[in-house]
C-alpha cells in the first residue's frame, strides 16, 4: 500500500467516521440523560434517509403512518395515566404535546404529497417528520420503566430495535434508496479529491461535538439533564423533572440521527434495516468515549471509520469481524477507567 492509497483510504475513513461521530454523539447524549443505550438510533437515521428519498420522488413517506401510529398510542397511554391520577386538567396539554404537535409535520407532508418541494424544504421536512419518533417511543416504551437497571433498559432497547426494523419494512418496503447529493462541488486537498459533501459531514460532526461538549460540561441546564441519569431521585429533589429531561434528550438526539441520515443518504444505498449495522459501528466510537465524553467519542468514531476503511481494503468479507472484535479491547480499557464509586445494588 503506498501513501496515495493510504491517503485515499484515510479520507474515505474520515468521511464515514464523521457520520459515525454524529450517531455516536447521539448515543452518548441519550445515555448521559436517560441511561438508555438507545439501540434503535441507527434505525431512526435510516428512516430519515428513506423519508428524504420518498419526498424526492414525490411519494408519501411511510414515516407519516409510523408517526401517526406512535402518536395515537402515546396519547392513549398518557390519557390512561391522567385518568388514573384524576388530574383531568392536564388532558388538553397531553393531547397537544402527544397528538397535535407530532402530527403537524406529518400533516404538512401529507398535504404537499405529489409536489416536488425545493431541497432545503425537503430536508427540513424530513427532519421535522422524524423528530417526534424517539420522544414518542420514550413515552410508550421507556417511561414506564424509567428507574429500571441499565441492563433491563438495554434489553428493551434491543427488542424495540427489532420492532422498528419490522415496522420499517412495513412502512418503507424492501427497496434501497439513494438521494441526490446536497452539493456536487469537489475540491482538491493536495492531490486528493475531496467532495464538499464530505467536508459538510466533517463540519457537522465538529460543530455538534463542540456544542454538546460545552452544553453538558459548562451550562446549568446541561448538568441538570445529566444529573437525572446519575440520580433520578436526587434530581427530582432539586426540582429537575426527569421526564422532561428525557424528552429533551431524545429530541436533541433525534436531530443528530436525522442529520446523519440526511448526510449519509446520498453516499450509501440505505435499506429499511441498514440502521443497525451503521448504529453498531458508531456505537464502538461511543464506547471509546466511555458513554460519557463527547470529545473522546468523536475521536473514537473517526478511528472506527478509518479502521473500517483500511480493514475493508485488506479483506472486505471480514471487515465486520475486525470492527466488532475491536470493541472488546475497547470495553476492557474503558472498564478500567470507568469509575465504579459504589458497587451496584443487588438487582
Amino acid at each position, binding site marked *: 500500500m503506498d501513501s496515495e492509497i493510504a491517503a485515499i483510504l484515510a479520507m474515505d475513513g474520515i468521511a464515514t467516521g464523521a457520520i459515525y461521530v454524529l450517531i455516536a454523539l447521539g448515543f452518548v447524549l441519550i445515555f448521559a440523560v436517560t441511561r438508555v443505550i438507545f439501540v434503535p438510533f441507527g434505525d431512526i437515521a435510516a428512516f430519515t434517509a428513506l423519508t428524504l428519498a420518498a419526498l424526492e420522488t414525490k411519494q408519501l413517506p411511510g414515516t407519516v403512518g409510523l408517526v401517526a401510529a406512535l402518536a395515537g398510542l402515546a396519547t392513549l397511554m398518557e390519557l390512561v395515566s391522567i385518568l388514573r*391520577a*384524576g*388530574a383531568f386538567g392536564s388532558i388538553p396539554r397531553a393531547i397537544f404535546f402527544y397528538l397535535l404537535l407530532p402530527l403537524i409535520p406529518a400533516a404538512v407532508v401529507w398535504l404537499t404529497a405529489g409536489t416536488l418541494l425545493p431541497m432545503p424544504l425537503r430536508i427540513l421536512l424530513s427532519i421535522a417528520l422524524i423528530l417526534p419518533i424517539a420522544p414518542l417511543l420514550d413515552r410508550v416504551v421507556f417511561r414506564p420503566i424509567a428507574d429500571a437497571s441499565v441492563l433491563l433498559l438495554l434489553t428493551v432497547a434491543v427488542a424495540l430495535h427489532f420492532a422498528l426494523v419490522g415496522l420499517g419494512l412495513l412502512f418503507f418496503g424492501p427497496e434501497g434508496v439513494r438521494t441526490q447529493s446536497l452539493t456536487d462541488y469537489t475540491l482538491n486537498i493536495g492531490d486528493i479529491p475531496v467532495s464538499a459533501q464530505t467536508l459538510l459531514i466533517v463540519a457537522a460532526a465538529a460543530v455538534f461535538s463542540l456544542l454538546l461538549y460545552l452544553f453538558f460540561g459548562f451550562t*446549568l*441546564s446541561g*448538568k*441538570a439533564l*445529566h*444529573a437525572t441519569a*446519575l*440520580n433520578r*431521585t*436526587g*434530581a*427530582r*429533589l*432539586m*426540582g*429537575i*423533572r426527569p421526564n422532561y429531561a428525557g424528552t429533551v434528550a431524545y429530541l436533541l438526539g433525534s436531530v443528530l440521527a436525522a442529520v446523519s441520515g440526511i448526510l449519509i443518504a446520498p453516499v450509501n444505498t440505505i435499506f429499511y434495516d441498514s440502521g443497525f449495522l451503521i448504529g453498531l459501528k458508531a456505537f464502538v466510537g461511543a464506547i471509546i468515549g466511555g458513554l460519557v465524553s463527547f470529545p473522546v467519542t468523536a475521536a473514537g468514531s473517526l478511528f472506527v471509520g478509518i479502521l473500517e476503511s483500511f480493514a475493508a481494503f485488506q479483506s472486505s468479507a471480514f471487515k465486520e469481524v475486525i470492527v466488532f472484535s475491536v470493541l472488546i479491547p475497547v470495553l476492557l480499557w474503558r472498564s478500567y477507567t470507568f*469509575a465504579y*464509586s*459504589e458497587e451496584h445494588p443487588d438487582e
Partner: protein
Amino acid sequence: MAVLAIDNVSVCYGKVEAVRNVSLAVEKGGIATVIGPNGAGKTSLLMTAIGLIPSTGRILYDGEDISRLDTEERVEMGFCLVPEKRELFAEMSVYDNLLLGAYSRRGQTAAIRRSIDEVFHRFPRLKERRAQNAGTLSGGERQMLALGRALMAKPRLLMLDEPSLGLAPLITRDIFHIIASLRELGVSILVVEQNARAALETADFGYVMETGEIVHSGPADALITDPRLITTYLGGNEAA
C-alpha cells in the same frame, strides 16, 4: 399558622403499613422533630410529604393542599428534603452538586454564587474538596454536602432525615447548631432523628414515632425530661 400540616396520612408497601394515620404540624419559623427507632416509618413519612411515594390523607403547605402535586412542584414552592440516603450526584464534583441544589433558583447567577460561598463558609471541608467527585467523599463529608446542597435552594421548609447518621460527636453538634441557626433565616424545619437528645435539645416541638404511629408528642423541653423517654431513647448516647 403551620407551614406544614400532615393530616391523617398512611403509607402502605403492599400489605405492610409503614405509616398509620399520622398527623403532625410544623409551625412557621419553628423546628419540629420526630424521634424514634430504626424502622418506625419516619423515612416513609418524609418521602410521602415531599411526594416521592403515594399515601392516603392530606399534606398541607401554608394551608394549601399539595397532596396531588409532583415532587418537583413542591420543591419549586420552597419545600425541600435531605433524604436518608442523601442521593448525591456521585460522579459530579462537590461544586456541581451545590450548583444543582440551586436549580429552582436558576437565573439568579450572582445570588447563587453568593449562596455557594456561604455554604463553603459553613463547611470549610467542602471548600477544600470542591473539585472532587462527591462519590470520593467520606461518609460524614457527604452528609455535609447533602445539607449544603439543600441550603442552596433557599428553602422555606426543610425536612432532614437523620442528619447525624454516621457523624462524629463533634460534627453532630455543629450540624445541630446549623439547624438551629437556620431559624434566624426564617426557615421552618422538620428533623427526623435517632439521636433523640441532640434533636430534642434543638427543636421546639417533638413527636415520638414507633411502628408507624405517633405515640407521644409535646414541647421538646417537656419530652427531654420525660422519664419514659429517658430510658428508651435518651440513654446517654453521645459524649457531646
